[in-house]
């Protein structure tokens, strides 16, 4: 399965947040979307998902118009983990992960055995079974991220878009989350993650897409993308690429 954005632009009050961005994501690859704050990464993600209006461009899923599909069908193909980690009410972790099955359930339906199996697989993937009965609101940042990631995995969509999955996590949990995403990609799903940690991105990602001021400025294997020239022009930092720091 392949998701493809062609010349996507997003405008808000005549200010262009994303201009003519083209990118693609295929099954089996783990791709990082990097760039400085305000580069338009999250906006591009939302535009690709169809939860934010685009002013130009199109999104194709296996060469067919993705955005004209019904919202629920889109959700079954492409799962999404937003940056927002707040969970309302004192819902237990299990119920939160079960919400990932929403696109598969009828309006008045209840959880099927297939839904429960998917939730268990997702909890397996994040090693979260011991958290299942605890309210997500009282979990630590690392535990909460794992449960919310399990919620996105429980959709069992062929493609997964995640927005800053490692934000505000300690190094151990960052590695854990990256390993979960890599396992997902190795099992055949296409994963696109917005990242800020260049060292992690360099270490885990098959490919990096770099955004700056709303445009995509580089796309390719980490080692060829993360050059001193790019760090200087995009991130305004002088230095050597992360692989040489390590």
């Amino acid at each position, binding site marked *: 399965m392949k998701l493809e954005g062609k010349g996507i632009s997003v405008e808000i009050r005549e200010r262009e947040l994303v201009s003519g961005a083209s990118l693609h994501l295929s099954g089996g690859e783990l791709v990082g979307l990097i760039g400085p704050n305000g580069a338009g990464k999250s906006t591009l993600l*939302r535009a690709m*998902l169809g*939860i934010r209006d685009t002013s130009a461009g199109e999104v194709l899923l296996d060469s067919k118009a993705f955005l004209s599909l*019904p*919202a*629920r*069908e*889109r*959700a*079954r193909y492409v*799962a*999404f*983990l*937003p940056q*927002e980690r*707040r*969970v*309302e*009410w*004192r*819902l*237990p972790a299990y*119920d*939160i992960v079960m*919400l*990932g099955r*929403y*696109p598969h*359930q009828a*309006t*008045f339906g209840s959880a099927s055995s297939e839904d429960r199996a998917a939730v268990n697989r997702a909890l397996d993937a994040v090693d979260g079974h011991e958290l299942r*009965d*605890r*309210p997500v*609101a*009282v979990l630590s940042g690392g535990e909460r991220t794992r449960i*919310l990631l399990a*919620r996105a995995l429980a*959709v069992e969509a062929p493609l997964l878009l995640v927005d800053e999955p490692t934000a505000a996590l300690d190094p151990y949990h960052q590695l854990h989350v990256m390993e979960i995403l890599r396992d997902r990609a190795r099992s055949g799903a296409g994963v696109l993650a917005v990242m800020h940690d260049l060292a992690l991105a360099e270490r885990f990602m098959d490919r990096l897409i770099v955004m700056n001021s709303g445009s995509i400025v580089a796309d390719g294997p980490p080692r060829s993308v993360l050059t001193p020239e790019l760090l200087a022009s995009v991130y305004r930092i002088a230095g050597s690429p992360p692989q040489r720091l390590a």
Partner: protein
Amino acid sequence: MKPPVPYPLLIAGLAVFVVALAFLSMIVGPATAGTFELFDMMAHEKADVAWMIMREVRLPRTALALLVGMTLGLAGAALQGFLRNPLADPGIVGVSPAASLGAVLALYTGLSTAIPLALPLMGILGALLCALLLHGLARRGGVLTLVLAGVAVSSLCAALMSLALNLSPNPYAAAEIMFWLMGSVTDRSMDHLLLAGPLMALGWLILAASARSLDALSLGEEAAAGLGVNLARTRTLVITGTAISVGAGTAVTGGIGFIGLVVPHILRPLVGHTPSRLLLASALGGGALLLAADILVRVVMFGSELKLGVLTALIGAPFFLWLIFRARTELES
């Protein structure tokens, strides 16, 4: 946290409670037609009178208390789920004040005496106009716009009701408006029931259709949209369902506060905090609470009958304060 009682058991328990209270409401009455008097009449030659009291007086009263209580409980639960705010109730989006304003205008202009059922019809009209206004204002905005618009509509309605009281031609007209605003199910006829009942049921169906989207909204609007929830559709369902059901209810009973706020609060832990499961539980809980309150106003007499809305506010407000006191750590987290 796992719910302390299995959901089906909770629903069955609440349903039995509601049926028992409805039965009690049919036979408990003020002294002149109290329980024993009623049975006495039935046992003797005046069975006709007893049945007539039951059918013409008690039945609409019981049914309205039940239906309006269910409406308030359900709409409160739906709004709290949609706005993701445990302090929301049908008043917060301005629907009940707008219905009250419509009814007050019917009283003020004398339309209510000229045309039968003008009062409830004007109330329903008020609620629907409020819903239209909210749609217009909140179409491009988010939850905050909706709440602020609701507060503005409520304030405007309160101001216009004060104006009607201020300008009312004589003290009796003013008193009539005041009494109506206090909220009651006394002396409502079968016509009121037949007018408001179907509309309330329609509103319930619309609200029920939003149930699963409310669950997904626990993750925030963005994640919900990513799961395929149509936010605009959910907002339309919640506003329209609330306007129709609460509007119809308020139009026949007047303002009855705190049911929509307190009932979802009490029941939320019992359904495991799941917004969709709270809907039916809150509807039953609201029906039970209003039936119980209406039985209480018949039994406890302070010279004249206490208005139902006064009683719910008297019990509800301190209870709510206690809830906040107890749950403040949770609310702040």
